[in-house]
Each structure stands twice: as structure tokens, then as C-alpha cells.
């Protein structure tokens, strides 16, 4: 009897489990494996720790002037791994601040500078000992950096505050702050041209449904003033920039999205292309693709140029490839091209055969590149492999692969990270998940994924998604499994959908690993500003300025409450346009909302203010029209301060200043 009862119980549990898995996967069969959904995506707890590992995730690196040491920034481990180049061996680690991004070694080889992106500072580290000597405050989210030709100043791109810190290295403090483009990340100083180039990830605000314009900021290095702001049209995610030794070209990696074109197909580069942007010394600009008609090389990230100026090396983090570009061929092509031809070249998938001389296979997710001072080796940081591939620039081939000493076990979540950052699950590898969700965030664009000009979708962040179902602006997806499942392959990747175990892995990665950085408007351990406090009162108010009670449905906190500031329900806030087939949209999460412009489901509001000043006239989106301009400013200040609760409870070293070292 007991056996029969157990068997029946097992049968019904299994049947229920299968139905539950099918429902959560969006109506397609998915193996009812409980731990896939209920353990692997977990961030905290004993079991989550048991099944996960702490990986290094090398992002960028720098070579010592004598060419003997490579300093690898391990983003997820908050360390720099020191590699002995002659022996191809990781020999030691140096502790950094939170979420290090890039490293630079001084010309005398005695000092290592490391940007700590989540701590808004730079560590000054004595070499060879590895002692942190000093910490220099920067803007928010310092990323790449480069020395002035005399070594006195360090130019630093501050990704989160959209500016550039110029650090005086004699004083070890910020000497000047200049505005950059949107989400600046790459920096290259050209001693020959006298200019410093800063590339940006995101478009500057543009008119709704017009092509993105992404800024490359050009600074007169000696004067430390912005000389020019130039814009690459229909391009973005310009992660890094490098300059030729001749000073005739600054070259940035870039992505060319087709977000305005109806996504009717993927064939023929219809969705997203990848390449380089060039600013010549005379200011002329050009874009060239690194793709081919039936083969794409997504997510170009790192770029270095050989000291002889002959070849540039570009890592494609979504294709596990480094492309080698013949710069003389590029010069010849551009010299002979008319303006019209240059426009055509920007979309030409066949041209790369003229200037890409070789593609070199790497390990998983190649990111930053570093080149030895003599130009003999290029080092490729493989973020999802915890390895470094070494390319011999004479042979133009990979000669060594260095193990940085990360965990050997590939966990489900790590496997998900490898899948997320790789375009292998998209037709002809045209793009990866990362392409539209760089750094697990969003690319700031609106796409026509249905392909009819209707139901436009503003890309949403993937950070801190755990516990925030449903998903999509329409709230139609009950889980990320559904979001990334069968329908996703029909409309987005346009090839075979993820196998169930791969889908589990991708979801585990998204849920577990992708998190917001600390809020730069409300750093951990800090109190709200007076303006933010006033804004908080407005956010939570229940009466208007003249004392009338605000109906519950029109209060901010009705829809935006809880740890993510969302009730996860649909609401009509009057944002629907003629092109929408529905009028109700999912209340978005508001943590770190300041870094998610543009706003609303279709990206029509360029700023938080525009949600109300342009699209809130009828008070459908909360009751705001009685507010004064100052009150709206305060409300926006408070919204910008919204942050995950963990940042306010953790006593962590996000910012360590000089006195604390």
C-alpha cells in the first residue's frame, strides 16, 4: 500500500512538476528539474555557495615597461593577477578595490594604477611589492585610462558620471573634470597628434526614432580642454580606442545597431553589425565593418595597435576571435574614398576581406588586449575562461595560453555566462545577449522586434531581475525561461533555440550574476541629500500641494513599492502611442533608474523629467502636475537615489580613501 501511495505521489508530483516547468517555460516542454530554477539562480545561501565558484573574470591588463610582467585586472575577484611573462605563469595577486576595470603601469615600472569602477577611485600600487600606496578619487565608475606623454597626468573615463577625470600624478588628486559622451569607457592619448580620445558606450540623446549618435570626445592633451566632440552616426558601444604611433588615426571599436529598421529578418546583417570607427588627423571620420556577409564577429571590445603602426588587433568578445587589421590597407581605402563611398563602406559586409588579414581563435569571451612594449606579443584577457591567450605578432598566431589560476570547475552559472556573452546561439553569430545588454545592462535603444513598426520595445536592464517577474514591457513573460525560450529564437536569435540545459544556465547567470553597481547618487553608507529627502516626501505623498487627497491609483508608491520599487503589475500611465497595440505596461523596477535612459516602454522620454514634462500631461502617470519645477527636480533627485537595499546594509569597502589605506 505504501509503495502504491509513494508511486502515485511520485507520479502526481512529477506530472505537476512537468506542467509547472512547461508553464514557466512559456508552454514548451522543459525538464522539470527543481534545482535548475530554484537553486542555480540563487545568489545567497549555503547551497548557492556550494554549487558556485568565485571566478577571476579577467577584463583588462597592462604590461610592464620591461615586458616581463603582465598585470591582469580580475573584475569579479577584486584582484590584479601578476603574470610572469617569460614563464607564462600567474605568480601573485594584488588586492584591489571593488570591481576593478583597468590597469596602467608607469613608465619607470614602479607604480601600477588600477581603476576601481564600483569604488570611484584609482589605487596607486607600488611595484614590485604590490602594496596599495594611495587612492585617488575620480568621477563615478572609472574605466579605462591613459598617461599624458610626459607621464604627469592620467586621463580617466568615468562611465557612470559621463565625464573624464584628469589626475595629477604628482599630487595624486583630480586636477580637472571634463564632460564626455554618454557612458565613456575608452581612453587613448596620442603623443604625436597632441590629442586624447575618449570613446563612449551609448548614444547621446537624439530625437525619438532617429539613429544613435555616439560621441568620441577629443581633448587637447596639453591644454586639458575639450577640443572637439565628434559623433559616429548609427553606431554605439565604442568600448575602447587606440591611436596609431604615427598619430594619423584614432580607432575605436563599435557596434552598428539596426534598431530603426523593422526586424523582419536577420539575413544579410539586417539586425546588428560590428566594426571600427576611425577619426583621422584631419577630423574626417569613417566606419568599417569587421563582419563578413555570412559571418559576424560581434561585440568588438579591446583594440591595440602595434608599435610599428602596421596592424591593429581587435578582440571580438562575442565570437572568441581576435581580428588582425592591416592599417595600410585601411589608409589606402579611406584615402581613395569619397564621402558617399565612406557612407556605403559603413554598411559593407564584404569589404573586411580587404583589410582583415587574419582571425585568431581565443578562449571564451576575449575582452581587453595588452601589447608588449616591443610589440612582440599581444595578450588577450579571456573573461569567461580565466585565461590569457598570447599572440605572437611575427607569426600572427596564438602561441601560449596562460592559466590565471581561477576555479577549474565550470558551474551552471558560469556556463550561462559563457553562453550569454557568446553569439553562437544567434543566426550567423550576428549578436550575443551581451550586444543589447552590455555589462548585463541595456544598450539604451528602442527596437522594432515585431518588424511591423508597431510595439516598439525599449531594451530593459537585466540587472537584479531575481524576484521581479513578470518580464517584458507587456508583462507577458512569467519567467526569464520564457523570455529567452522558443519565441526568443523566432523573433530575436532566429536560429535553433537554447537546449533546456543551456537555457537553465543562461537564466542562472542572468539571475545570479547581473547586478547593479552601487548607486552614484546614493553611495553605500551615505545619507540622502536634502533634495533627495524632499523628493522622497513627494514620492510618498498622499495629498496634493493644495491639500487634496491623491487617489490611491495615482500615488507613486502604489505601483512603485517594495525592494525593487515595482508592484510587478500592468498599468495604463498614458504612455501608449499610435504604434502600440496595448495600453497597459509593466511597472518597471526603479533601482539605479538614473542609468536607464531613455525611459518609458518605447524609449520616447529622453530623461526622467520628460516622463512628466512631455508625457505626463494628463496625470495618468502619477499625480504630478501640481508640482513646481523645484519639486519635480527634487522628485527626480530622489528617483535617482533609489538603490537595492543590500547597498545600504552592507558595510563594504566600496570607497576607500587615502586615510583608510
Amino acid at each position, binding site marked *: 500500500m505504501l509503495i502504491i501511495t509513494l508511486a502515485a505521489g511520485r507520479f502526481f508530483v512529477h506530472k505537476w512538476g512537468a506542467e509547472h516547468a512547461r508553464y514557466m517555460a512559456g508552454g514548451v516542454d522543459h525538464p522539470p528539474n527543481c534545482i535548475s530554477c530554484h537553486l542555480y539562480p540563487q545568489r545567497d545561501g549555503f547551497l548557492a555557495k556550494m554549487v558556485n565558484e568565485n571566478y577571476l573574470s579577467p577584463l583588462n591588463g597592462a604590461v610592464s615597461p620591461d615586458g616581463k610582467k603582465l598585470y591582469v585586472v580580475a573584475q569579479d575577484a577584486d584582484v590584479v593577477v601578476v603574470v610572469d611573462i617569460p614563464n607564462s605563469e600567474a605568480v601573485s595577486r594584488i588586492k584591489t578595490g571593488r570591481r576593478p576595470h583597468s590597469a596602467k603601469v608607469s613608465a619607470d615600472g614602479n607604480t601600477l594604477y588600477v581603476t576601481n569602477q564600483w569604488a570611484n577611485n584609482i589605487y596607486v600600487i607600488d611595484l614590485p611589492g604590490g602594496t596599495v600606496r594611495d587612492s585617488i578619487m575620480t568621477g563615478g565608475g572609472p574605466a579605462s585610462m591613459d598617461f599624458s606623454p610626459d607621464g604627469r597626468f592620467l586621463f580617466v573615463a568615468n562611465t557612470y558620471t559621463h565625464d573624464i577625470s584628469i589626475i595629477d600624478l604628482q599630487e595624486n588628486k583630480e586636477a580637472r573634470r571634463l564632460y564626455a559622451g554618454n557612458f565613456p569607457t575608452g581612453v587613448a592619448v596620442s603623443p604625436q597628434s597632441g590629442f586624447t580620445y575618449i570613446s563612449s558606450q551609448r548614444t547621446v540623446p537624439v530625437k525619438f*526614432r532617429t*539613429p*544613435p549618435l555616439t560621441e568620441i570626445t577629443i581633448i587637447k592633451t596639453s591644454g586639458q580642454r575639450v577640443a572637439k566632440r565628434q559623433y559616429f552616426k*548609427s553606431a554605439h558601444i565604442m568600448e575602447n580606442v587606440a591611436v596609431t604611433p604615427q598619430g594619423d588615426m584614432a580607432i575605436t571599436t563599435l557596434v*552598428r*545597431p*539596426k*534598431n*530603426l*529598421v*523593422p526586424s*523582419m*529578418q536577420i*539575413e*544579410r*546583417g*539586417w539586425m546588428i*553589425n560590428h566594426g571600427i570607427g576611425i577619426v583621422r588627423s584631419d577630423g574626417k571620420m569613417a566606419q568599417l*565593418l569587421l563582419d*563578413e*556577409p*555570412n*559571418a559576424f564577429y560581434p561585440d568588438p571590445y579591446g583594440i591595440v595597435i602595434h608599435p610599428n603602426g602596421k596592424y591593429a588587433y581587435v578582440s571580438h568578445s562575442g565570437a572568441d576571435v581576435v581580428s588582425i587589421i592591416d592599417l595600410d590597407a585601411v589608409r589606402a581605402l579611406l584615402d581613395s574614398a569619397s564621402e558617399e563611398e565612406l557612407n*556605403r563602406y559603413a*554598411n*559593407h*559586409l*564584404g*569589404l573586411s*576581406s580587404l583589410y582583415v588579414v587574419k582571425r585568431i581563435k581565443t578562449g571564451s569571451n576575449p575582452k581587453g588586449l595588452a601589447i608588449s612594449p616591443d610589440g612582440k606579443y599581444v595578450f588577450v584577457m579571456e573573461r569567461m575562461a580565466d585565461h590569457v591567450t598570447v599572440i605572437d605578432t611575427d607569426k600572427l598566431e596564438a602561441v601560449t595560453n596562460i592559466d590565471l589560476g581561477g576555479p577549474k570547475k565550470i558551474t551552471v552559472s558560469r556556463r550561462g555566462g559563457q553562453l550569454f556573452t557568446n553569439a553562437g546561439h544567434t*543566426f*550567423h553569430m550576428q549578436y550575443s545577449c551581451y550586444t543589447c545588454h552590455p555589462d548585463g545592462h541595456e544598450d539604451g535603444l528602442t527596437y*522594432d522586434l*515585431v*518588424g*511591423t*513598426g*508597431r510595439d516598439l520595445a525599449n531594451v530593459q536592464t537585466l540587472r537584479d531581475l531575481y524576484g521581479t517577474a513578470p518580464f517584458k514591457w507587456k508583462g507577458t513573460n512569467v519567467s526569464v525561461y520564457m523570455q529567452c525560450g*522558443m519565441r526568443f*529564437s*523566432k*523573433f530575436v536569435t*532566429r*536560429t*535553433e*533555440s537554447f537546449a533546456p540545459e543551456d537555457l537553465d544556465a543562461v537564466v542562472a547567470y542572468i539571475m545570479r550574476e547581473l547586478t547593479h553597481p552601487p548607486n552614484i547618487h546614493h553611495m553605500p553608507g551615505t545619507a540622502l541629500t536634502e533634495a533627495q529627502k524632499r523628493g522622497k516626501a513627494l514620492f510618498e505623498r498622499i495629498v496634493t500641494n493644495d491639500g487634496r487627497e491623491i487617489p490611491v491609483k495615482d500615488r507613486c508608491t502604489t505601483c512603485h513599492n517594495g525592494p525593487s520599487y515595482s508592484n510587478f503589475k500592468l498599468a495604463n500611465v498614458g504612455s501608449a502611442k499610435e504604434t502600440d*497595440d496595448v495600453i497597459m505596461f509593466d511597472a518597471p523596477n526603479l533601482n539605479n533608474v538614473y542609468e536607464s535612459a531613455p525611459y518609458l516602454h518605447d524609449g520616447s522620454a529622453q530623461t526622467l523629467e520628460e516622463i512628466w514634462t512631455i508625457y505626463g500631461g494628463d496625470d495618468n502617470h502619477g499625480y504630478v502636475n501640481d508640482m513646481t519645477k523645484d519639486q519635480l527636480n527634487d522628485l527626480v533627485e530622489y528617483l535617482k537615489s533609489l538603490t537595492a537595499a543590500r547597498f545600504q546594509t552592507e558595510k563594504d569597502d566600496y570607497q576607500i580613501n587615502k586615510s583608510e589605506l
Partner: protein
Amino acid sequence: MRMRSYFNISGFLKILTISVLLFACGAEKKNETLAYVFTMIPAHDVRATVIQNGNHRYLPGMQVAMIEVGKSADAIKIITNEFHSARAPEASFNGKNIIFSGQKNQGDIWQIWTYNMKKKAFSQITNSETNCTDPTWLPDGKIAYSKLISEKDGLQHHALFRIGPDGCCEERITYQPHEDLNAMVLKDGRLLFSSIQIKPTKGSLKYLAMRPDGTKAELFLLPGSNAHATGKAVETRDRKVLYTEDGKLVSVSFNRPLHTRKVHENQGIYQSVFADNGKLLVSVTYEKNGIFELQLLSDVGEPVYRLTDSGNHIIEVSTIAERPVPRKLPTRVDPKKRSGFIVCLNTDASDIMPAVEGAKTAKVQVFSPEGLIGEVAVEEDGSFNLELQADTPLMFKTYDAEGNLLRGPSSWVWVRPAEHRGCVGCHEDREIAPENNVPKSLKGGPVSLVKNDISKEESHE
């Protein structure tokens, strides 16, 4: 005591012995016998000489045969003894079944058959009233093949179809007055097939790539002028596509097929080529009117295995082995719908000079084989957005505001039910990706040129 019995020495040795044997068998299996399947044609049949120009389709007395390499040289095994004629074999991706086109009795219609290697059993897949040839396995287990069809105007030609392995649910997937033959699946999941326009004028040989649901058909590669295809084009492990063109072996780069055509000057006359795990399997002869033989070529092109038969040509060679399954592409075709959509981003983006110099396109006319379907005004940015009858051959002509013909007629295209497809321009450079703009024609929705206007709710997903 019972526990002890599990660990006694003799038991352990037995397990060890069995394990070693199993391991050894496994190791043997890794180096399993290579097996090839091919078509044999009696060499004395004078009509067999036409295999060199591609017109070898319906000879009597053809047989599907196989050989297991490593066994004696005379071990060619005829599989289709009970057939009057059989040809075009191809093993499934798991190496367990063979499809072929067969004529059971003299005068029968050629049908698609499968042969189960283990059960040694045949199954008739198609039950067609016209000849079905050139079968190929699709990644989802279905079968694509060419079928002779008659159009309303009496035109007879081959179109591509697909069908389930159980013979269920036959579906036509190409809709153009072309000879569509020699289908083969690329690793990306698309079908690559040879195609020659036969109406309104006879065109030259092209290879088109298309999703297995019949959507997104586009030019993939262009053989030399007046070339004949004698077999399927195949993709190799190093991302090349190889095919035979008038007896020559030709390759293109998969990544850039339209500009990398290379005619290999190997000696010999080639009838077919098949990619075999880094090596090439070819059917070749070294004399005009000579007997074709099977050769396995090393990666430097040297034969490492040859199979000849003095009494028969050996053609249409392929491997019987487990092969990587290409991508299973999702489909958005909805058989309940009757229309599809085409958006052209800019009709003036073209490599063909307009008949009137400097003129700008003002309208476009759409034709089916029966004549004009309709005409629509082109937007200021050169774009148009049309809803069109699905599964119908379509041609376009563009005109300026004065009614002068600028370009056209275009090549034939079609849309499947609910398909949305886009064009960068009209006969534009096929390596150009679209410019990132919202086409003006998108704003008002598609202009319907469908007879008996389809309801609005059918128009949008």
C-alpha cells in the same frame, strides 16, 4: 556475507574483464568502418555519358549501392535490387537511414524512399503523381526534395518540397518558375539548392539559400556563365562550399560566397562532391567518356581511397556515418494566413543604373506569372511596404513620376504565409547591410495587394 560476495576476487575479475572488453569494443567503434553510399549506372549505357552535363536524372537501371571500407574490394552491396532504378542516396545525420529517389517498376513515378539500415526495410515516403528526386535530410528529421510540377499555364518545372519522414504533411517550399534542384542543408540550417529561371526567359544557374520553411530565399553563389550543375553543393568543415560545375570542382568561401569563386584545376572530370569530416568524397573520371569512380581525398587533395567498378559509373557519393546535425531553424510561417509582407527600404539603392539617368522611383508595379497584380506609390525615401499573396511568384518593376520604366523586371521572389521579409534595395549589392533608418512606408502600415483583401487582424502578428 552477501556484501562480501560483491567484492570477491572472481567477481571483481569478471567485472574487470567485461569492462576491458566493453572498453575495447568502444575503442574499436571509434575507428569504425567507413561506409559510403552512392549511385551506380551501367557504364555500357550510352545515355550515361550525359552525366557530365547534369542531365542524368532519369536513366533506367541506376542502383543505390554502398561499400564498407576495410572489407574486400568487391564488397559493393546493391541496396535497391528490388527497384527498377534508384538514385540520389543520402544517409541520415545519425547514419541509420538512407533516403533516395526510386522507381520501383519500369514506368513508375520516381518517389522518395527511405532504407532502414538495421531492419533492411524500405519505406515509401512520397506518393506523388509526378517525379520526386534529389532528396536531402533536414535537421528536424523531415526530408526536402525536388518535385516536378505543372503550373496553371502548363509550364512544367521542379520546385522544392518537404515532407515528414512518415510521409505526412507534404509542403511546397519554393514558388518560382525555376528548376529548383540539388538541395542540401548548410550547417546554419538553410537549404542550398541550384536554381535556373525558366520564365519569362531562361536564366543562368544560381545557387540560392533559403530557410527550410521556404522563407528568406536569396542568392547565395553564382557559378560561371552557362555552367551546369551536376550535383549538390556541400559545406566543408573549414567553411567552404564546394560544388561541381561542368566537371570542375569549384569552391567558394561560406563567409563571402559571391566574391570568392575558385575553380580548382585538378585533373579529372568531377560529377559530385561530399564533405566527409575534413576530407572530400568525390565522383571523378580522368577521361572524357571515362568511367566515374569514388575517391576519398586527403586535405591536400590526394586520393587516400578509391573505388572503381569496371561495369558501372559511381556517382552521387556520400558518407554513411553520424554527422553533426545542422541548426534547426525556427519558423514564423503560419499556414492559416494567406499573405506575407515585403518592405523595401530604398528602391533607388541599386547596382543597376536606372533607364532614365538620375531619375527617382515614384511607383512600383508587382507582377505574378499571370500578369500585373497592382502598383503602389513609393515613399519619398524610396521605401515601400506591401502585403502580398503568399506562395505566389512575384516580380517588380519600378517607374519614375513620368511613368518611365527605371528598373525591372526583377528576379522572382515570393513570401510564405505570415513571412516578413525585407530588401535593402532593388538588385543592390548583396553584401550591403541596411542603413539604420525608419522606412517612411512603415508608418501607414502595409499596402495590401492581396485579392479579396485579407482582414486587418491577419496582417499583424
